[in-house]
C-alpha cells in the first residue's frame, strides 16, 4: 500500500474516532439532561399537586367522614387540579384516572417515598411519578404521568443528525487530508522519480526540493550521493579512456619490433641469403627482442609505480642524490660528448633516493638526446625546485601538454633511432607524484628546454 494512502487512512480513522466519541458524549449528555429536566419538572409538579391535594383533603376529611364522602372529596379535589395526567388510587380503587394507563401496574409504591419510573406503554415512553398519602387511615396513591416519548425520539433524531454530520466531517476531512498528505509527500515522489533516473544511469540529475524538513535534508544527502556517484563514474570513464588510449599506443609500440622480428625470421626461413645477411637478420631480431624486453621492463616499472599510492620518503642530503646521479650518467654523457654541471643550493629533501635518481636520469637522458655534442646540461637545485636545463633543440609548444603521455614522442623517428621507448616522462611523472611533486616544462624551439621538478610541501 502506498504511503499516502496509509497516512490518509490513519488520519481519517483518527478523525472518525474523535468525531464519534464527541458525538457520543454530546448525545448521551443531551439525552440525559433532557430526561432529567422532564423527570424533575414532573416530580416537582407531582409534589405541588400532592401537597395541594393533601392540604385540601386534610381540611375537609375528619375522622367521622364517611368513606363514600371521602372518596367523592378525594375525586373532587383531584379534579380541581385540572390535570389529566393525574391518577389517584386508593388501594385497588381507581378514584381518578383520565388516562388509559394504570400506573400502579408499573410502579407499585412503597410507603413514604416518592418514586418514578419510565415505562414503555403501548409504544409510548411514559414517565410516572407517584407517592403515597395517608389521610385518616386511608392510603391514597397520587401519580403524575408524563409522555417522554418525544425526548427519546429527539435523542434518536439527534443521533441520526450527528452521524450525518460525522460522515460529512469525515468525508471533508478525508479529502482535505488526502490533498494535504499528497502535497506533503510530493517531495518524496520527486525523490523517487529522480532516484529511479539515477538508478537508470542518468547521473547528472539533481533533486530540487524547497522544503527544509527531513525530506529536504534527505534530498540534500541524496544530491551529494549523486555528486559522488557522478564523480566516480566520470573518473572511471576517464580511466577507461586512458587505458584504451594506453593499450592502443602500446599495441602500436609493439607492432614495430614485432614486424621486424617476424619479417626477419620469415626471411631467414624461406629466402636464400648470404652468411653475412643471415647474421645481420639475426642481429636485428636480437636487437628487436632487446627492445621489447626493455619496453616490458619499463612498462612493469610504470605499472608498479602507478599502483603504489604512497612510498616511504626519507629526509636525505641532496648532495648524496646528485653524486649518485652524476656517477650514473657519466659514461653516457661522455659518449655523447656532453658535460653536466650541478649547482646544489638545497640541503636535504624527503625522498626515495633511487626513484628520484631514476627521475633525474630520465630527464638528463632526454636533455642529452636533445643536445648536440659539446653542449652542457645543467642541474639546479634551489628552494623547492630541481631543474634540468639543456640548450638543445627545444620542444614545440603544442607538444608540451602531451609530454608525459605514455608513448608520446615529439620526434618519433629520431626517438626510435636513439632507442627511446616513449615511457621516460610518464615514469618521471609517476615518481614525481610519489614525491608530492609535479613536473613543469619550459621550452623554446632552437633554444633549449628546462624541466622543473617542483616539490609542493617543501618550503
Amino acid at each position: 500500500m502506498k504511503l499516502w494512502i496509509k497516512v490518509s487512512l490513519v488520519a481519517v480513522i483518527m478523525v472518525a474516532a474523535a468525531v464519534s466519541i464527541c458525538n457520543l458524549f454530546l448525545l448521551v449528555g443531551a439525552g440525559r439532561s433532557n430526561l432529567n429536566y422532564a423527570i424533575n419538572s414532573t416530580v416537582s409538579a407531582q409534589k405541588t399537586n400532592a401537597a395541594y391535594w393533601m392540604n385540601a383533603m386534610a381540611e375537609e376529611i375528619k375522622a367521622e367522614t364517611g368513606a363514600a364522602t371521602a372518596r367523592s372529596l378525594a375525586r373532587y379535589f383531584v379534579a380541581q387540579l385540572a390535570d389529566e395526567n393525574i391518577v389517584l388510587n386508593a388501594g385497588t380503587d381507581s378514584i381518578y384516572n383520565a388516562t388509559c394507563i394504570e400506573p400502579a401496574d408499573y410502579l407499585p409504591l412503597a410507603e413514604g417515598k416518592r418514586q418514578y419510573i419510565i415505562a414503555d406503554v403501548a409504544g409510548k415512553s411514559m414517565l410516572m411519578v407517584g407517592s403515597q398519602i395517608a389521610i385518616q387511615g386511608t392510603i391514597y396513591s397520587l401519580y403524575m404521568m408524563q409522555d417522554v416519548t418525544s425526548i427519546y425520539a429527539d435523542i434518536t433524531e439527534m443521533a441520526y443528525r450527528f452521524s450525518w454530520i460525522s460522515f460529512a466531517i469525515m468525508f471533508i476531512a478525508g479529502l482535505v487530508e488526502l490533498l494535504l498528505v499528497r502535497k506533503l509527500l510530493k517531495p518524496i515522489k520527486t525523490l523517487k522519480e529522480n532516484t529511479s533516473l539515477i538508478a537508470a544511469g542518468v547521473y547528472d540529475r539533481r533533486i530540487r526540493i524547497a522544503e527544509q524538513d527531513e525530506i529536504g535534508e534527505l534530498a540534500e544527502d541524496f544530491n551529494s550521493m549523486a555528486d559522488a556517484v557522478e564523480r566516480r563514474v566520470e573518473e572511471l570513464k576517464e580511466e577507461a579512456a586512458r587505458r584504451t588510449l594506453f593499450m592502443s599506443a602500446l599495441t602500436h609500440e609493439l607492432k614495430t619490433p614485432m614486424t621486424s622480428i617476424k619479417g626477419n625470421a620469415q626471411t631467414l626461413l624461406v629466402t636464400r641469403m648470404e652468411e653475412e645477411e643471415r647474421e645481420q637478420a639475426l642481429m636485428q631480431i636480437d636487437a628487436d627482442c632487446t627492445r621489447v624486453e626493455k619496453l616490458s621492463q619499463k612498462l612493469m616499472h610504470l605499472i608498479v609505480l602507478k599502483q603504489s599510492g604512497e612510498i616511504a620518503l626519507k629526509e636525505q642530503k641532496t648532495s648524496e642524490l646528485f653524486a649518485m646521479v652524476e656517477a650514473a650518467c657519466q659514461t653516457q654523457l661522455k659518449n655523447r660528448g656532453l658535460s653536466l654541471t650541478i649547482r646544489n643550493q638545497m640541503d636535504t629533501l624527503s625522498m626515495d633516493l633511487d626513484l628520484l635518481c631514476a627521475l633525474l636520469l630520465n630527464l638528463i637522458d632526454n636533455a642529452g638526446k636533445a643536445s648536440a655534442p659539446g653542449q652542457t646540461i645543467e642541474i639546479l637545485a634551489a628552494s623547492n625546485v630541481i631543474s634540468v636545463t639543456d640548450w638543445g633543440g627545444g620542444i614545440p609548444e603544442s607538444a608540451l601538454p602531451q609530454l608525459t603521455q605514455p608513448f608520446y614522442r615529439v620526434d618519433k623517428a629520431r626517438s626510435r633511432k636513439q632507442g627511446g621507448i616513449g615511457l621516460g616522462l610518464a615514469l618521471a611523472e609517476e615518481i614525481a607524484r610519489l614525491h608530492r611533486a609535479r613536473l613543469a616544462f619550459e621550452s623554446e624551439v632552437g633554444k633549449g628546454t628546462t624541466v622543473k621538478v617542483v616539490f609542493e610541501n617543501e618550503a
Partner: protein
Amino acid sequence: MARNRILVVEDDEAISRIITKNLISTGYAAVPVYDGCKAAELVQMDADFDLALLDVMLPGMDGFALLAYMKHHGIPVIYLTAKSDIDSKLQGLRDGAEDYIVKPFEVLELLVRIEKVLERTGKMQQTLEIGDITINLMERSVRKNGAEILLKPMEFNLLVMLAKNKNIALSRERLLHGVWGVDYAGETRTVDVHVGQLRKKLGLTEKIKTISKMGYRLED
C-alpha cells in the same frame, strides 16, 4: 631483362631492409627511401617505378600525402602500416591505393599482393629469366638457351610459381594450393613428381633446392 622497380618508403630501417632483401631476392629492383619528403622529391626526378610500398606514419610527409605524388606519376600504391584501425584503412583505399597491408605482415603475403597489383595494373613483366631459362607468360613457352622445351600445363604453372618466388622457399602445400587450386584434393606427392619432371626436362637439379621441412626453392 627489365625488372619491375619498386619504391619502398618505410622509416624503420630494419623493416625496410627485410622488404628490400626479399624483393631483390625474388627478382625485383627495390629502392628504399626512409623519409616522406625524400620520396616525393625522388619521384619528381625519377618516376620510373612500377609500384610503391608506402608506410602511413612517415617522417616529413605521411603516406596519405604521398599518394597524390604517386598517382600523379601513375605509380600504383600499396600501403604498409601498423595502423590497423579501420578509418585509415578506408581513407587509404578511398584515396585510390591499390591495396593495404597491416604490420606485422607475412613476407609471402606481401609478395603475392605485389604480384596481384602488378598484374592488375598491367605492369607485370611478361618474361621471367632464371639463368639460361626464359619463361614467356604470354606464350606459355619455356626456352633453354633459345631452344623451346615442351612442358605439361601443370609443370609450366609450377615453374612459373617457383620463378615468381625466386630465392624464396615455398612449402609443398603452398605450391599445391597455388598451382592445382583450392579444390585439388591431391597429395603433396604430386608436387614432388612434377618438381622431378622440371628438374629433368630443364636441367634444374641444382637450382630447384629441396629445403628440409619447408619445400622447394628455385635459386638463380
